[in-house]
């Protein structure tokens, strides 16, 4: 067993490493654009308009209330038909991941904004600050402290969730496992290698986030 793992690693490590690169890249793109979209959704959800609030609440609830694998299939099938130009499988999957992530990020950001002391809003309003200026200069800078650690966790979650992209053979770590497994027929050793890599990455990331959290608390 150990022999097989070493053998496979020595022979196919570049496949695993390029898979790891694919995973990190996918997770990063997803969380980056998911954050931008999620911020918009969160602000809409906090808006005074009941209609806008209801639409965004539905958006968040549906995306959080259905399996991510289902969403990947849905966008993978829908987007090529709905869009007038050609979209690759990878593009469909990335879009689906971004939209899924945006719903979780939106909740993180909404909670972060609402955790800012109400007195801050009252002070800004009493000075006659516009809503947009207040959000941008007073509330969001303070909310970031609440939001950043949670966004880091979302990144860790995404590192794992992107493994679902292997169903559609989008290049990432789990797809690397499939590639190696299908040429060597040694499933358990290659799966073990992939598992170890996932664990090392998420473990390092989680520790990094804890450290960041402690630093931010210290600066309060």
């Amino acid at each position, binding site marked *: 067993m150990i022999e097989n793992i070493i053998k496979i690693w020595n022979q196919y490590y570049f496949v695993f490493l390029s898979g790891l690169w694919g995973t990190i890249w996918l997770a990063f793109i997803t969380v980056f654009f998911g954050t931008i979209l999620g911020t918009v959704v969160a602000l809409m959800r906090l808006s005074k308009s009941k209609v806008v609030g209801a639409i965004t609440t539905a958006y968040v609830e549906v995306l959080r209330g259905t399996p991510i694998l289902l969403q990947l299939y849905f966008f993978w099938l829908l987007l090529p038909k709905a869009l007038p130009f050609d979209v690759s499988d990878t593009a469909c999957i990335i879009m689906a991941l971004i939209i899924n992530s945006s719903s979780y990020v939106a909740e993180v950001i909404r909670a972060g904004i609402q955790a800012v*002391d109400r*007195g801050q809003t009252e*002070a800004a309003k*009493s000075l*006659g*600050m*516009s809503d947009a200026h207040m959000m941008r*200069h007073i509330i969001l800078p303070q909310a970031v402290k609440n939001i950043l650690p949670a966004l880091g966790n979302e990144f860790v979650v995404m590192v794992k969730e992107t493994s679902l992209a292997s169903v559609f053979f989008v290049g990432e770590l789990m797809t690397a496992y499939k590639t190696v497994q299908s040429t060597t027929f040694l499933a358990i050793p290659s799966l073990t290698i992939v598992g170890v890599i996932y664990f090392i990455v998420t473990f390092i990331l989680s520790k990094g986030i804890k450290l960041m959290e402690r630093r931010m608390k210290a600066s309060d």
Partner: protein
Amino acid sequence: MTKQISDKALIRVEGLCKNFGELNVLKNINQQIRLGEVVSIIGPSGSGKSTFLRCLNLLEKPDAGRIFFDNVEITDKKINIDQHRQKMGMVFQHFNVFPNLTVMQNITITPILERKTLKAEAEQKASELLERVGLLDKRDEYPRKLSGGQKQRLAIVRALAMDPEVILFDEPTSALDPEMVKDVLDVIKGLAESGMTIVIVTHEMGFAREVSDRVLFMDDGDIQEEGTPDQIFGNPQNPRTKEFLSKVL
């Protein structure tokens, strides 16, 4: 002390009602604040004092009644309330200074953003105001380095930087350590003497008696008695006023 109080009503309140759920916090209040007047609002907790004050700049939305500021009805839904709030400063019990901004930025951010004041000009003015309250050496600090009394003086300066026509004080010394109360009261007193229109909710009876032109005693969501400080503190007529004062004086 010779002070000019104009006949002009700066704030006029007509039939103001406010409910929190089933609770009638304000029951049909009619009142006016004249230009240059210093008005103290006293009364037991839960009497609606703070709610009344917070209705004046619509931080609380009245359920009924109208409020006029400078003869403009600010309870009218069509007006841009932000513009009117710029002329009504407010100072809070818990300071509510902006922790993500330096002392200087706390003061200059609103004039720069909302009045398009030039940065240099806003900072010049902020420096003068900071000097007046003895905080000039803190201009580049963040609020977490300030004591409660210093934070409250910063909050006052922040309100003053917008050149307000009135400042509303909501229990400005209630959250302060005793030794800091005087610094803050001195600043407010200075403002009162300079002719600023002030409405202040306070538990500092000595202060209210000393600086006010008029004292309102609130209880049970209504103004039960009003008069000069000498009338209210020296010779109260309403039994509730008498009872309240006997407990706090």
